[in-house]
């Protein structure tokens, strides 16, 4: 089991390494304007010496190596445009806790609402609640988030009697962003949990549990829900990503001083180093989600520890 875990971990790290390299190379294809605060006013000489100073005129492998070296030392580069000559880490430091808090609250809320919702939909399959839930899932899945976020903000603030501008110290201000961000994951959890539970409930072992004489509610929770929940772990990475994407929207919509909002800002202002740093961070978050999902599967599914691979052959 330990071997399996370390293998998976090593693999994920390798993947992360490749992804970071690809992202870096892609970002280096961007126009060099993004590396200077006042590009228009600079002479050709100044630009060249600037590039030289940053090491951007060196061959790609060298740049790549330096990037990884700096990354390991926790150096994400220096912002030129968003804030001139301030290390990116210094800009990000106060923003990360805010995004983290927002993201984990949203994940928590989506679990608290999504899981009972999926369970109830499966339990009352084909009944009113199931149809209602399915309607909700279809709406959330089909309509772009940007659209319902806007309306939630518009009418939510009126309903709660709060201002649209975010105030980090007012708990009421957190309600709408957290709720909006959790909607996508709520629909996701509810939909998949329902499907897995419906799938599980037709399996033979459920039939055998009935034959044993267990009650329907007992079967629902100690067999169907339990077994349906394990594959749900696979969706942990996706929910991480959903949260990241949600944060990009939500934070800029509510002017929350977090990472997602920052990304939109620096994109609009074309600050290459900042974009690079945030994109790398987000990609890392995605991979961490994947690793967590894998690890959780190992812990929860006894079949995997023996080296059975999921899917395929």
């Amino acid at each position: 089991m330990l071997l399996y875990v370390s293998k998976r971990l090593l693999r994920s790290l390798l993947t992360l390494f490749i992804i970071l390299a690809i992202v870096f190379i892609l970002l280096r294809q961007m126009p060099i304007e993004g590396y200077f605060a006042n590009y228009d006013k600079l002479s050709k000489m100044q630009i060249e010496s600037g590039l030289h100073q940053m090491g951007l005129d060196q061959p790609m492998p060298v740049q790549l190596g330096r990037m990884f070296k700096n990354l390991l030392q926790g150096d994400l580069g220096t912002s030129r445009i968003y804030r001139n000559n301030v290390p990116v880490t210094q800009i990000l430091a106060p923003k990360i806790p805010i995004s983290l808090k927002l993201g984990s609250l949203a994940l928590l809320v989506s679990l608290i609402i999504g899981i009972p919702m999926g369970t109830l939909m499966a339990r009352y399959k084909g009944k009113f609640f199931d149809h209602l839930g399915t309607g909700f899932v279809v709406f959330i899945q089909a309509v772009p988030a940007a659209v319902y976020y806007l309306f939630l903000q518009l009418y939510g603030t009126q309903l709660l009697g709060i201002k649209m501008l975010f105030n980090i110290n007012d708990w009421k201000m957190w309600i709408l962003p957290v709720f909006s961000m959790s909607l996508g994951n709520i629909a996701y959890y509810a939909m998949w949990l329902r499907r897995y539970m419906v799938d599980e409930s037709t399996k033979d072992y459920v039939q055998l549990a009935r034959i044993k004489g267990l009650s329907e509610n007992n079967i629902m929770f100690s067999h169907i829900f339990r077994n349906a929940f394990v594959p749900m772990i696979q969706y942990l990475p996706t929910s991480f990503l959903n949260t990241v994407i949600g944060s990009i929207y939500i934070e800029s919509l509510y002017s929350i001083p977090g990472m997602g909002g920052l990304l939109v800002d620096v994109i609009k202002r074309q600050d290459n180093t900042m974009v690079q740093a945030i994109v790398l961070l987000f990609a890392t978050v995605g991979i961490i989600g994947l690793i967590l999902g894998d690890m959780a599967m190992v812990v929860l599914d006894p079949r995997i520890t023996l080296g059975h691979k999921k899917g395929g052959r």
Partner: protein
Amino acid sequence: MQNKILSVKDLDVKFNLRGRTLHAIRSLSVDVYRGETLAIVGESGSGKTVLNKNFIGLLDPNGFIDGGEILYYGNEKPVDLAKYKGEKDWLGFRGREISMILQDPMTSLNPLKTIGSQIAEAVKVHQSLAGDDLRKAVHELLREVGIDDPERRAKQYPHEFSGGMRQRVVIAIAIACQPKILICDEPTTALDVTIQAQILNLLKDLKKKLMLTIIFITHDLGVVANVADRVAVMYAGDIVEIGTAEEVFYDPRHPYTWALLSSLPQLGVKGEELYSIKGTPPNLFMPVVGDAFAPRNPQALEIDFLEEPPYFEISPTHKAKTWLLDPRSPKVEPPEYIKNIRGMGRR
């Protein structure tokens, strides 16, 4: 022997499928006697499994009983299982009075729970045991179905068990509450031939030890010959012939039974093409007129297409539903193979 434990009378079972009605069991009657092993044989889709699911209240939600009764004489007062509605009636009955073994041991167990906990669940349903007592009961059951080292095995998960071992576990679960009737739905089909024999022997032993009545569903006639006291042949939702195993095997009367026996590879003549029944069973979405087997029977009579035959009694224990037994019918010789078996019977 004539002590009924289960008596089915004129049972009709239908399914609603996309606005159409499928008539799965067509006014079927059968008696099951205490302590016997009754084998129900027939092709897939003949209704064997559907019939038995009625005895344990596990008909699919779109299926329903449309008349008839299922009287259960397991306790002092007979009860009509056809009137049982919903979970409330069945809880306390399932597992305790009638239990069941499913076909595929690979899927019958929850892959994410230990063997021990799955057996314990069954024990707890009807006995309030806990802790060491419960553990001991579980180990005892495992030992009873022939699993060595139960203390260690109980902590393992199903994927650590072979198919035969899993079926033993399923049997342990099924007998955990000492049921009076055990329904075995093709319990050996998914297993290797060598394992099949072991499981059949285990079932025979348990039957003796626990005084079980066994209803054995199968399409494997070899298995039937091995375990059954009586055999019922099902076709298109009805029993077309029923009798002791000897009667049905050595003196079959219904053309369908003939066809079924003729298609046994063991009875085929070397070098000759194996007999196979032409066509498929009737579409039960449509009303069946006459003898359901007639369209596939090369020797069908005109009346087979028009009127349903009644049961004709051949002996007090043997009856068949075919016009061939009517005194007015012409003499029809059973196929060659059947005559051969008859010969074997006399020997």
